[in-house]
């Protein structure tokens, strides 16, 4: 059976994913993507998968947003 915590975090993840798609400004989108990665990490923790939690924390919440931010900085520099 799913616990109340698991249901709550599933709903939060769904809301977070929708927010990432709906936010149109790339920089804000990257920040929201990072928060979404954090939510996903909590989700994996709630479903008793600590290994996946660590991977999601490092890659989804830190590494991917960092790479995207750097790419955005590069693109903006070229547009100036």
């Amino acid at each position, binding site marked *: 059976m799913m616990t109340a915590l698991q249901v709550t975090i599933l709903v939060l993840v769904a809301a977070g994913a929708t927010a990432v798609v709906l936010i149109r400004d790339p920089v804000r989108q990257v920040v929201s993507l990072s928060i979404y990665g954090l939510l996903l990490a909590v989700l994996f923790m709630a479903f008793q998968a600590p*290994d996946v939690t660590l991977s999601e924390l490092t890659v989804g919440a*830190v590494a991917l947003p960092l*790479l995207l931010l750097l790419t955005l900085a590069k693109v903006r520099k070229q547009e100036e």
Partner: protein
Amino acid sequence: MTPSQRRWVFLVAGGGFLAFYLWGLVGLPGFGHYPGPYGDIINAIAVSQTHATAVVSAVNFEYRAFDTLGEEFILFTAATGVATVLRHLREERDTSAMDEAMNRDVPATSDAIRMVTLAFIGPTIVVGWYLTSHAQTSPSGGFQGGIVLATAFVLVYLAGQFIVFKRLSPVALTDAIEAIGAGSFAAVGIAALALGAAYLSNILPLGSTPGAVNSAGTIPLISFFVGIEVSAAFILIIGELLEQTLIVREGNR
């Protein structure tokens, strides 16, 4: 195609997808009722067979170590690709960098950011090293630990010193460490072959106590090599991208 026709195509396709999706959902096993045999078998034998109390690591670095090797080389190839592509571009822009820098203000890093990032560098290295070296005892491993270790270098950059970041991670050294990490993982497997065992089978003594840091044979060794490969690859990718975005800033100093 008119908008209304397009909407009808979408509604038909979406309705069909929804029907098949719901049909598939009905056939799924109930939540928490895993039907396959492998998970239960692994849970029953992994600790006595590998002396690793983190069964996920035992699966990653032993039972399916060959798959992990493949995944490792995906990252290796990605880092090599980034380095190759961006190196070419960098040479193209090198001449204009100084001129652009003349009239550009470089915002100074605030003291608060500097303090916080500097304070976090040490703990980050400790956490990264802990994750890399404790794959056999607790949920962790080289992949996660490697990224955390690389994050420490990014903190050095965030503290405002790109030059220091480059000095700490020269491309030649990072390249070499990445290659040594990836190559050593493959070499652990070849060593097993040389001893007459299957590729990547656990050839080292397992240690007497399951759950001790020095137990589980090749699992911590492979985790260590994965850790340095992942951290070097990530530092390399970040370094190349930073150089792309900050080459103007660097020319100003």
